[in-house]
């Protein structure tokens, strides 16, 4: 996947720009994203945290980095593993 490729969610309004990508399937709302708009219904319940415009999303190894250019209800993942916002800190184990 070339940097600069623009991908659309099949489950919501989310659109991302690929900053960096490795091997794997980029998904939103639990369904693969594509350059052309596909329709796969609503985001799956466990992939429906939503995306925020302007945020950069990465995987744990920072192999993938996606920039959200249009927000939506689904959440981003690669091969089923959720991506996190680049500046997000892990939550504390307990309060």
């Amino acid at each position, binding site marked *: 996947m*070339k*940097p*600069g490729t623009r991908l659309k969610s099949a489950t919501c309004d989310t659109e991302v720009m690929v*900053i960096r990508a490795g091997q794997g399937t980029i998904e939103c709302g639990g369904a693969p994203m594509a350059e052309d708009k596909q329709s796969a219904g609503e985001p799956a319940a466990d992939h429906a945290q939503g995306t925020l*415009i302007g945020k950069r999303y990465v995987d744990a190894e920072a192999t993938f980095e996606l*920039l959200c250019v249009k927000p939506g209800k689904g959440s981003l993942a690669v091969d089923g593993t959720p991506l996190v916002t680049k500046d997000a800190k892990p939550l504390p184990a307990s309060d």
Partner: protein
Amino acid sequence: MSAPAIPLTRWAQGQLDALAAMAPGAALPEAGALLAERAMLHGLTVPGDVSCRGGCRFHRTRDGWVALNLARPGDRELLPALFHTDAPVDLASGFAPLDEAEAVARGRLLGMAIAGLCERPASPALATSAQGPNRPAPHRPPRVLDLSALWAGPLASRLLRLCGGEVVRVESRGREDRLRDTDPRHFHRLAEDKRSVALDLRTAAGRARLAQLIAQADIVIEAARPRALRQLGFDADACVHAQPGLVWLTITGHGIAGEAANWVGFGDDTSVAGGLSARLHAETGEIGFVGDAIADPLTGIFAARAALEHYRTGHGARLIVAMSGLVGEAVARDPHLSQDLTAWNARRGHPVLAPEAVPC
């Protein structure tokens, strides 16, 4: 009389004179000194196609020119996406095959501070997005809460301080004003005589304290992109509707309407987006920057004048200042701009001078 060192100084002086008229006895600096403030601190020279501090550069596109500001860490990571390629590519060959408008649109989508030589500002200098309940015109100096960083917002609050206002500066933990480290002398000059409060806006306690500070303020100054405040749970329009007489000043690169709300802008690239470099090109045939991040000091001066003017009426409002639109207005209104640009261009490579230092 000698020509002002930096073009648009006379327009800026008009704004400062209007500010001074509202604060009799205030000792305000001259516009020429404010526009040249950083250049004088660092002995900067009149720039060509690379900005005074080197962060913003012009690049040739297939049909025109873009100015790209790589001001923040992480901006360079976006270049492969900007040029749609896996291979390493230098900026000159990356931009060469692109159209100016296409390169600008693509860069802005990626959140880069970029502008096209030929573009027109997306928003007017000043817009009002909300009107608040009125209160009787106040007869005391304003309490100013400054949430902004870098140059434009802090200059606006510094001028309001010089006009007698009390200024509280919020330092956001985890998102500190980088100017403190990158340019401590300029930072301290802008922060002079202001109180400061450090808040962690990532915590509920920090956000609650911010809400209290807003409730005590007459003028709030911020320069966050609209979505950043919303994501923290603050709605500026709602604050203005709820608090009689509150003047909420939002400083933006390109306004808050439509897609432009998400565009980033800094002092040099927004001066290009406002048409100042296009005018320099029309007058001299040269591609270059005018002033040192000139949209920043122009915006600080204009914003202080607009905020104090509103405060004194007692009419609450949210004022949206767009840096590119403001440069566009100054370019359209300064009657001496043509000759000042010619003089500016002739001094390329020579020190930027404050007016009193220009030999007659």
